[in-house]
């Protein structure tokens, strides 16, 4: 049984002092239900998650207590992707016909505070100041620039594109374009990455209604089909965040593994994709993830970025809604935001940030600590 997305809802990302994370999730859920033309009472199941805003099943207190199986999902940056995979299986297996996936969050300002013990590390690792995701991303792109000839200007270009796309997206947090000069000249956080090259924890909510593909037209004229949804964790030897040591022999990371599995499952290749949403925790991540997901060779990004290929009007649009850089990263909602954006693009409903050419296939990718990656492929 194929699975279709028939309803999408979002609560604007950024800062909303008047609403809790849960309320933002409920807002997104109501929007998604309305988009599909269904009631909360029609949902047969739900999967959802948040990192800092409580249990997702508390959405029942907002939307109504209907007795359905509502399963809380917690999987870091891949929480949304994991909920989606669970929902996909629930429908594909024939167990359920229609259900809801939701993700929301509301984080404090500033870098995430990680607890060494939660990851099986000693207290010393945090005490000496290495429990920082930002350092990992900086060290990974530092090595990548050295090995593959990526310039510092290319990192600034990634961020400038994100803020430009954000300025076209009414649901984005950062809606002002920022020049490459200002990005490159902003405060250095972790060399070679400056302040404007990093995304920040933020707030937001996204929800999706999924159903059996053979019933999709009951709910919408523009169903979007979930062709694959894959989650992979790191194998031994991949270079990952929060690792006091790493193996001398490096293997491909979870992003490469998830991408390969997703393409195989969908029966398509990287060259078939029309629009890409790739994890851009910082500028360098987007650059590296282009190659890790199979969309170019290592090092080719320099030319692609310098020639504008990843802009909305380019031949390989990346992060058309402004990505994490312009939307911030509410952990529970972030991966679902990518799916929301691709559904908009494939429906042709993205307004000012709509890519030209009637895109048919969309790709989403998240990566997060401590080395997990989730990929989806959507088809109109």
């Amino acid at each position, binding site marked *: 049984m194929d699975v279709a997305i028939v309803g999408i809802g979002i609560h604007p990302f950024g800062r909303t002092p008047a609403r809790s994370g849960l309320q933002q999730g409920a807002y997104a859920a109501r929007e998604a239900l309305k988009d599909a033309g269904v009631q909360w009472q029609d949902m047969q199941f739900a999967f959802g998650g948040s990192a800092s805003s409580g249990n997702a099943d508390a959405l029942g207190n907002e939307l109504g207590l209907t007795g359905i199986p509502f399963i809380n999902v917690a999987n870091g940056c891949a929480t949304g992707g994991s909920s989606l995979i669970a929902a996909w299986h629930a429908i594909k297996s024939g167990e359920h016909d229609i259900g809801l996936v939701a993700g929301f969050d509301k984080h404090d300002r500033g870098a995430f505070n990680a607890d060494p013990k939660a990851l099986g590390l000693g207290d010393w690792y*945090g*005490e000496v100041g*290495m429990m920082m995701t930002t*350092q990992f991303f900086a*060290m990974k792109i*530092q*090595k990548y620039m050295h090995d593959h000839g990526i310039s510092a200007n290319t990192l600034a270009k990634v961020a400038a594109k994100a803020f430009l796309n954000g300025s076209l997206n009414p649901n984005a947090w950062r809606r002002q374009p920022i020049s490459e000069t200002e990005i490159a000249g902003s405060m*250095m956080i972790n060399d070679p990455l400056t302040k404007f090259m990093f995304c920040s924890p933020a707030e937001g909510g996204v929800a999706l209604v999924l159903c059996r593909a053979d019933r999709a037209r009951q709910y919408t004229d523009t169903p979007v089909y979930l062709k694959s949804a894959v989650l992979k964790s790191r194998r*031994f030897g991949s270079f990952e965040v929060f690792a006091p040591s790493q*193996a001398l022999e490096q293997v491909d990371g979870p992003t490469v593994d998830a991408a390969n599995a997703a393409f195989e499952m969908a029966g398509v290749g990287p060259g078939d994709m029309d629009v890409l949403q790739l994890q851009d925790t910082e500028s360098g991540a987007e650059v590296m993830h282009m190659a890790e997901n199979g969309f170019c060779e290592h090092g080719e990004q320099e030319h692609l970025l310098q020639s504008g290929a990843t802009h909305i009007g380019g031949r390989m649009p990346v992060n058309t809604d402004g990505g994490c850089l312009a939307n911030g990263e509410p952990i529970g909602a972030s991966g679902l935001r990518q799916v929301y954006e691709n559904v908009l693009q494939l429906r042709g409903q993205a307004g000012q940030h709509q890519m030209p050419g009637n895109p048919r296939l969309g790709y989403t990718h998240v990566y997060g600590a401590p080395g997990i990656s989730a990929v989806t492929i959507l088809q109109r």
Partner: protein
Amino acid sequence: MTEKRPIAEGLFTWPSPQPALLASRCRQCGVAAFPVAESCMACSGQEVDVEELPRRGTLWTWTIQQFMPKPPYNSGETPETFQPYGVGYVELPGGVRVEGRLTENDPQKLRIGMAMDVVFDAYRRDPDGAEIVSYFFKPV
């Protein structure tokens, strides 16, 4: 004399006239890990030997931490006294790539591939007056 204590037991030999980082090495597949682990992440083996890692290696990658991290960061510094610090992975031949703080925080003086030595030095002073010792990598 000031008491000197290691920041964690078992990370390196201490006290010792010539301290060294300690790694576990799997008896089954030969892969090393730092810090010492009771089982092997490569092959799931549960028999490991503990060995001293080489004291010299090469810088694999690096960054500079330019702002003061929130707790659990505990260096004894205040926002006023905070000094940016280098962090990197140093490839220790035959062993592993170990992540550690660098003694150098000037990006102009760091380059991938340069030789680095492990050194053991005071990291902070605890309320009881003891010096807490940690490991650092220092350009040769």
